[in-house]
């Protein structure tokens, strides 16, 4: 399985500027769109906003996992965004969020290979060591390596 199908360097951005949760999610959508993963950024953005309204994806420690399963996503995608400054997220521990691990899944996803990997990523986010190494990573290479290491 070629993991670059799920994530690659063009889906990782450091020092992203955003002042609010909505701006941060717009950046997530822009990055996925610019990487050729979306037909349009809007449906993904709206899907993520809708998901956040249902319940927060900020699961504590300054990390969030915004995600949406919507039409207009061309292939399952992971993107990782580090914000220059943490933004208010209404997170489970009320702490502002600086690290985003975002998922995009096509509404009509066929096959389970990618979904299994996304599930594996989600499970790993409950491991402190994994989250710590993502938070302390300073380069795109380190982040890419950390994420793809769990798929081996």
């Amino acid at each position, binding site marked *: 399985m070629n993991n670059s199908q799920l994530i690659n360097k063009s889906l990782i951005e450091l020092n992203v500027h955003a002042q609010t949760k909505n701006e941060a999610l717009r950046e997530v959508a822009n990055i996925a769109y610019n990487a050729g993963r979306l037909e349009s950024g809007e449906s993904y953005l709206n899907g993520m906003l809708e998901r956040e309204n249902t*319940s*927060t994806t900020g*699961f504590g420690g300054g990390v969030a996992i915004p*995600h949406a399963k919507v039409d207009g996503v061309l292939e399952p995608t992971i993107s990782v965004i580090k914000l220059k400054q943490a933004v208010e997220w209404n997170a489970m521990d009320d702490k502002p969020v600086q690290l985003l691990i975002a998922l995009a899944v096509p509404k009509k996803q066929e096959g389970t290979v990618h979904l299994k990997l996304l*599930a594996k990523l*989600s*499970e790993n986010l*409950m491991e402190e060591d994994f989250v710590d190494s993502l938070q302390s990573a300073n380069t795109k290479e380190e982040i890419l390596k950390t994420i793809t290491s769990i798929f081996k």
Partner: protein
Amino acid sequence: MNILAVTACPAGVAHTYMAKKGLEKAAKKLGHKIKVETQGSMGIENEIKAKDLEKADLVILAIDTKIEKANRFDSKTIHEVPVAAAVKNAAKVIEDATAKL
């Protein structure tokens, strides 16, 4: 204690699996046995069967959506919480559940 759990969330791509992991880790820490079924984007996985139910002391449902085959648990002590509770503090979910017995 023998615990069964089902996790499910609307998109079924993230919190279903985070909650599963959270419950498994917390159960281990607290010295309980647990089997967690996920009802996510890949359908039912690690399905709870009749033989699992026979020896189960209680059932935790960490769900934000209607689950399939819920009637399996009709005769069991059920502790239902939002899926976020199992992501945030699964140990508390298990402690609250065992306190119901």
